[in-house]
C-alpha cells in the first residue's frame, strides 16, 4: 500500500515534472513601439496586458522610443544580431525594410476577412512590390486644427477651405491683435517637416517622383515649398515652427498660442483634455485645406504598421500578437488617440461618440491620403528635402535652388 502510494507520488512528481515545464513554456516576444503621437504608452501597455492575459504562455517585453529613433533602433538591433520580434514601422520604410530583409513577407497570413474589412488606404502602409510586410495599425494623417474661440473673436464663421484662405484668416487674426503669429507647424529638421510639406504637395497636385527620378523641384512640389516660405516670411507662421516637432506644436496649440495648427489625430482628444490643455472644448478639426481648382482637401499618409522581423525566432506568436493589436475589437476600444483601420468602425457609435467632428474630418482626410515616395533610398531623399526646406525658410537659398540641390542629393 505504502509502496503504491510512493510509486504514485513518484509517478505524479515525474509526470508533473514533465508537464509543468510544458504548461509554463513561455515564449518571450520583444516588441518595439514609439512614445509619440497616436496610441499612448499606457494604451499600448493595456492592450498588451489584455493579450497576455488571453495568452498566458506568451510574454511580451515592450520598448518605447521617440519616433526619431524608431527606424535606426530597428535596423541597428537587427544589424547587431539581436533584434525585436515585432516592430512598429512607418509607411515610408517597407520598401527599404523589404529590400534589406528587415521584415518578413506575411502575405499568406492576410485573410480575406482582413482584406475586405480594412480600409484600402491603410493597406498601402504595409505593401511593397505587391507583397504585405505587416498589418496596418495606426491610420493617421495630418488635420487642420483650429481654436474656435480665437476664430469667433476674429469674426471668422467657418474654418478655411483653401490654403490661401488660411493665410487670409490668419492675417485677420493677426491684424485684430489676437495673436502675433497664428499658425504653428512642425518644421524642425526631421521627418515631421516632410509630413507638412507632403500635405502641401498633395494640395498643389505635385509629384515627388516621375519615372523614378525626382520631380518635386517642379510644379506642385515647388509651389508647396513656396507656400511654406511665404507663410514664414509674412510672419503669419510662428517662426519657432522651424524647431518644432509635433509635440511642440501640440503644446503651443494647447496653450492657446496658435489659431491654426497642423497635427496628427492624437492632438484632438489631448487638446480637449482640460487637465493639460487651456483650450479644451474649443478645439476644432477639419481636413487640411485644398487649393482652388486643384484639390478640395489635402492629406499625407502618416500611417504605421506592425511587422514581424526576419530575425524573430517566434514568428507565429509574433503574428498572433499583431493580429490581436490590430483587431477591430482592440482598435475600437482605444479609438481616442488613433482611429481604427477597419471601415465599419467609423459607423460604430462606440468609436464615434464624443468625437463626431474628428470622424467627419477623418472620412474626408483619410480618403485623400497622399503617399510619400516609395523607394529603398527614402531616408536619403528625406534628409535632402529636410535640408532644402530649412535652407529656404532661413533664406539661405531660394526654394527653386534648394529643391534642385535636394534632387541632386536625393540618391535617386
Amino acid at each position: 500500500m505504502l509502496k503504491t502510494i510512493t510509486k504514485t507520488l513518484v509517478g505524479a512528481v515525474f509526470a508533473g515534472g514533465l508537464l509543468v515545464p510544458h504548461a509554463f513554456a513561455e515564449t518571450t516576444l520583444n516588441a518595439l513601439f514609439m512614445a509619440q503621437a497616436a496610441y499612448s504608452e499606457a494604451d499600448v501597455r493595456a492592450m498588451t496586458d489584455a493579450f497576455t492575459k488571453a495568452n498566458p504562455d506568451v510574454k511580451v517585453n515592450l520598448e518605447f522610443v521617440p519616433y526619431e529613433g524608431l527606424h535606426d533602433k530597428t535596423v541597428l538591433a537587427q544589424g547587431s544580431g539581436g533584434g525585436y520580434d515585432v516592430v512598429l514601422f512607418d509607411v515610408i520604410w517597407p520598401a527599404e525594410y523589404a529590400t534589406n530583409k528587415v521584415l518578413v513577407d506575411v502575405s499568406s497570413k492576410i485573410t480575406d476577412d482582413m482584406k475586405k474589412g480594412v480600409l484600402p488606404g491603410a493597406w498601402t502602409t504595409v505593401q511593397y512590390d505587391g507583397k504585405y510586410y505587416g498589418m496596418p495599425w495606426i491610420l493617421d494623417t495630418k488635420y487642420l486644427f483650429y481654436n474656435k474661440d480665437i476664430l469667433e473673436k476674429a469674426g471668422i464663421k467657418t474654418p478655411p477651405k483653401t490654403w490661401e484662405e488660411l493665410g487670409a484668416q490668419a492675417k485677420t487674426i493677426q491684424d485684430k491683435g489676437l495673436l502675433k503669429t497664428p499658425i504653428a507647424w512642425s518644421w524642425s529638421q526631421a521627418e515631421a517637416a516632410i509630413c507638412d510639406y507632403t500635405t502641401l504637395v498633395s494640395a498643389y497636385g505635385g509629384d515627388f517622383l516621375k519615372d523614378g527620378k525626382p520631380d518635386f523641384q517642379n510644379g506642385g512640389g515647388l509651389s508647396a515649398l513656396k507656400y511654406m516660405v511665404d507663410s514664414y516670411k509674412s510672419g503669419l507662421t510662428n517662426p519657432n515652427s522651424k524647431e518644432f516637432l509635433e509635440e511642440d506644436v501640440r503644446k503651443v496649440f494647447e496653450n492657446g498660442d496658435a489659431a491654426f495648427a497642423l497635427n496628427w489625430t492624437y492632438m484632438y482628444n489631448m487638446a480637449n483634455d482640460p487637465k493639460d490643455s487651456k483650450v479644451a472644448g474649443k478645439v476644432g478639426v477639419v481636413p487640411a485645406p485644398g487649393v482652388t481648382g486643384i484639390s478640395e482637401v489635402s492629406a499625407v499618409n502618416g500611417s504605421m504598421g506592425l511587422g514581424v522581423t526576419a530575425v524573430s525566432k517566434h514568428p507565429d506568436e509574433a503574428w498572433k500578437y499583431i493580429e490581436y493589436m490590430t483587431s477591430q475589437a482592440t482598435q475600437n476600444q482605444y479609438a481616442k488617440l488613433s482611429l481604427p483601420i477597419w471601415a465599419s468602425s467609423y459607423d460604430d457609435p462606440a468609436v464615434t461618440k464624443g468625437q463626431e467632428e474628428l470622424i467627419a474630418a477623418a472620412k474626408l482626410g483619410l480618403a485623400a491620403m497622399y503617399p510619400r515616395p516609395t523607394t529603398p533610398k527614402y531616408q536619403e531623399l528625406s534628409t535632402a528635402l529636410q535640408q532644402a526646406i530649412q535652407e529656404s525658410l532661413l533664406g539661405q537659398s531660394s526654394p527653386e535652388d534648394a529643391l534642385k540641390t535636394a534632387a541632386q542629393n536625393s540618391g535617386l
Partner: protein
Amino acid sequence: MSSTWMTTRAWLLMLPLLVVMVAVIGWPLVDTVGLSFTDAKLVGTGGNYVGFDNYANMLSSSNFSRTLVTTTLFAVISVAAEMVIGVLAALLLNQQFHGRAVLRALMILPWALPTVVNATLWRLIYNPEYGALNAALTQLNLIDAYRSWLGEPGTALTALIVADCWKNFPLVALIALAALQAVPRDITAASLVDGAGPFNRFRFVILPYLAGPLMVALVLRTIEAFKVFDIIWVMTRGGPANSTRTLSILVYQEAFSFQRAGSGASLALIVTLLVTVLAVAYAALVKKTAGSAV
C-alpha cells in the same frame, strides 16, 4: 638579468588586459578597416571590394568639408572656453573661505550628469516658447521678444557650445584644483614678499605648476569635443539646415540612417585618423611642457 625579468614580468602582468583590449578594440577596428573598402550595407552580408572609392567619395563631398569646419569650430571654442573657465573656477575654489567644501562638491554636479540629461535640460532652457533663458533675458530687458536659439544657424552652434561648456568645465577645474594644491606655499609667499602682483604671481609662479596637468585636460577634452555626438543629437539633430552637423553625426547618418556600412566605416576611420594626429601632437607637447615645467 633582473631587467629582462622585469620586462617579462611586466608583459605577463599586462597580458590579460592586452587580450581584452585586442578583443574589444583591436578586432572591431580591423573589421572596420576591412568594411571601409567594401560597399556593404548595414543589414545583410558582405559587400563587394571597391578599393579607395569610399574614401575618395567622402573626402571630396561638400558635406564632409562643411562638417569638418563645424566640428573644428565646436571643438576649438568649447575647449578654449572650458580651459579658461575651469582654471578660473579652480583658482577661486583654492581660496580659503567658508562653504568651500560645499561649492567644490556642487561644481562636480554638471560633469556627473549624463550628457543626455544635460542636453534635455538645456533644450528646455533654450525653448523658444517657454524657455528660462528667454524669460530671463526679456525680464532683464536684454532682448525684446522671445527668440529661437536652437532654430537659427547664427545662434544654434553657440547655444550648443555653452551647454557643452557648462557640462565639461568642471573636469578642467578639478584637474587644475588638484595641481594648485601642489604649488608650495613658501614660493607663493616669497613672490608676495618680492612684490609680484596677482597677474605676475599667476603667470610666473602658479602657471608652471599647472601647465602639465592642464595639458592632459586639454588632450582629453579636445579628443572628446572632436568626437561630439550625443549632446548635439539630442538638442538639434544637426539642424537647423545642417548648421550644427558634426563629423560623428555624419558618420551616424551614413552608416545607420542610410545603411551604407562601407562608406560609413571609411568616414569613421577618417575621423579616427584626425583624432589620432591630434592626440600624438598633444602627447609631444605634453612631453615638452612637462620637461620644461620642472
